[in-house]
């Protein structure tokens, strides 16, 4: 499947998409840097929590790149990344509330992202909404379905 740039693909990264890419990049940097630093300096304290932060950072990075690149493949990748994020923030958020002992130290997703003013909870929803909206305009355009 060639990663061709159709007009709708370009709209994925323009307008609100550009803001999403910026926010995702900042969160990718914040989560990865924080997790790696904690893994490097305090591995023994809460390895699972720190590894989870790094993993979350990686997902944010994938989503940011997927949103920034034009193309159908990238859009699917970004869609999957946003889905993983939403699942992650809900799962880790619930675990941190109901099983507090499991993650001794906070991650980006702990308590549904309350340490980051709940942006991690809102972000995947916005991401999914934006990708699906672009996807719909793309699908409704006549002849757009031929190019896959």
């Amino acid at each position, binding site marked *: 499947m060639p990663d061709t740039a159709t007009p709708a693909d370009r709209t994925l990264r*323009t*307008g*609100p998409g*550009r*803001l999403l890419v*910026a*926010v995702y990049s*900042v969160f990718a*940097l914040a989560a990865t*840097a924080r997790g790696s*630093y904690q893994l490097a300096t305090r591995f023994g304290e809460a390895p699972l929590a720190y590894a989870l932060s790094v993993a979350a950072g990686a997902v944010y990075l994938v989503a940011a790149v997927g949103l920034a690149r034009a193309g159908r493949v990238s859009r699917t990748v970004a869609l999957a990344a946003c889905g993983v994020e939403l699942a992650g923030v809900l799962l880790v958020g619930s675990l941190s509330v109901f099983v507090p002992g499991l993650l001794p130290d906070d991650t980006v997703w702990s308590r549904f992202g309350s340490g980051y003013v709940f942006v991690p909870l809102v972000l995947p929803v916005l991401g999914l909404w934006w990708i699906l909206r672009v996807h719909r305009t793309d699908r409704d355009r006549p002849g757009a379905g031929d190019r896959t």
Partner: protein
Amino acid sequence: MVDWLTMTIQMASLAMAGWCLVSTFRDQPMLVPHLVGMGVLWLLVIGQAVASAAAVVGGDRPAEAAMFVSYLATVVLLPPACAVWGFMERSKWGPAVIAFACLVLAVLMVRLEQLWNPVA
């Protein structure tokens, strides 16, 4: 960390964030006044970074110096990065990106201050 500079940067970046949000709602792209504002903010941040770096080299460093320096580098890179974004996105979403970056900048200044003077 120079205290009054930290305060000034926080006030300035919050003001920039507010202004850019207004521009977003008014459907304006990034304009020259926004760039001038970001330039002033950037100069303030660079001033703070140079003062802090001089203090760190001089031996007056926080306990988590590596963390502090990496945050400092991020803060210095933030204003030019979002200005580039404003050039790429010639719509109201350009100022929206700048507003977000300015809010992050204000938060990062709080974080820097915590690392510099940890409240035990």
